[in-house]
């Protein structure tokens, strides 16, 4: 059923920009329209491109935000989340924790 909802009305997760828009709702309490506009603005793309997996894979690869099929040497996991925090202008809880534990801050 999660798949049915995902196809019927979801943003596609990290195939597109679903996780990024989710982060704006979660960290800033933004409603959907504002959250989409924020992410599109930060990534310098149109709101309509946020759910386009072709455009978003390119954008995510360029900015090292993590993709479904990462190539060798590309950012993934916590590495990509450092980039996501920077790209969206937000603090990500586990990234801050990583910085603290590794002596980066």
């Amino acid at each position, binding site marked *: *059923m*999660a*798949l*049915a*909802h*995902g*196809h*019927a*009305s*979801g*943003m*596609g*997760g*990290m*195939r597109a920009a*679903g*996780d990024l*828009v*989710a*982060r704006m*709702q*979660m*960290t800033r*309490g*933004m*409603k*959907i329209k504002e*959250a989409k506009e924020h992410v599109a603005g930060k990534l310098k793309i149109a*709101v*309509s491109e946020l*759910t386009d997996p072709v455009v978003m894979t390119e954008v995510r690869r360029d900015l090292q*935000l*993590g993709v*479904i099929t990462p190539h060798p040497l590309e950012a*993934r*996991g*916590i590495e*990509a*989340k450092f980039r*996501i925090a920077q790209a969206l202008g937000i*603090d*990500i*809880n*586990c990234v801050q*924790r*990583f910085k603290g534990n590794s002596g980066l801050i």
Partner: protein
Amino acid sequence: MGTIFTRFGDGTATTLSEKELRADLEAGTADAGDRGKIPPLSDDDLRHLFDIFKAPQSFLSVEPGNEVVLTYDAGTLKIRRVGVAVDRIQALQIYEKIMGADTMELCHVDYSFKPLKPILTMEQPVLEQALLATHIPLFYGAMPNLGLYSQPDGPFPNPAELMPAGKIKEAQESYEQTVAEAVRDIVFVAGAMHESGADGINIDTVGAAGDADFLAALLASEQLKARYPDICIELGMAGEFVLGMHGGLQYDGVRLAGLYPHDQARLAAKAGVTLFGPVVNTNTSRTSPWNVARAVTFIKAAVAASPVPVHANMGMGVGGVPVADHPPIDIVSRASKAVVEICRLDGL
């Protein structure tokens, strides 16, 4: 005029004429309007619903641009429930990489805050490790489940035994004591998982044990927000209506018993909740058009009243989705499209 394929709330297939479909949509929204004292759907909304249910396709979707963010309750538990033998971190990766989930939730099979307390230090490293390997936001979730705080499972006298014996005051006192204990447990577990790096805390199935259960979730949210101002809390309800098991409990001067989603949303936001998840129960003996029209009416009012983003619960048996182990995608996709487009939802 041909017949329209649809289903009942238990998933059983049926057909309706156009006239019957229109009548069911109107009856569904009228029922919600009457119970919730909220406006019924407009003619435009009912026309949109009519078109959704009349469409011959087996699967429908929102129009491009209307997509929303999906959050999940009991996330990793559902992989175990279907018998797929993978570890929880693998389950998170399956949702993230294979199912394209926008967010995901780590949880324990014993999905209540109370039993998590003694195993918290075993749960934190799993979350911490998962956060290193995944990309999408991760919630940690559990239920307040106040039923665990009364005898024989907990320390307090069982209100379900006191009430039939006419000991109303004693039953109310027991509920009040369970609230204090549950708040302590929720704050303890959720605080620890936040400190371990969780992107959000999902307080799920809230109100399952009635108004005391809802109060515990609100008070815990308030305390968590005061302690961790940047914490994200999603509060998902158990049912459409807060059962008055105590009857007199209040939050912010509002009596909790009998509240519907639009009033629940206001209180959740007041308590510091980041995302609110309303529930509308599915009636198995009415048709899916009736159920979806009813759900859309309640949720639309909740979205209008809520200062925070609303992620409607659309799992099995709620939000117009049939009560069936394997809900048919013809109705799931119609319910999904209907609530997102008509209610202007922020997520599911």
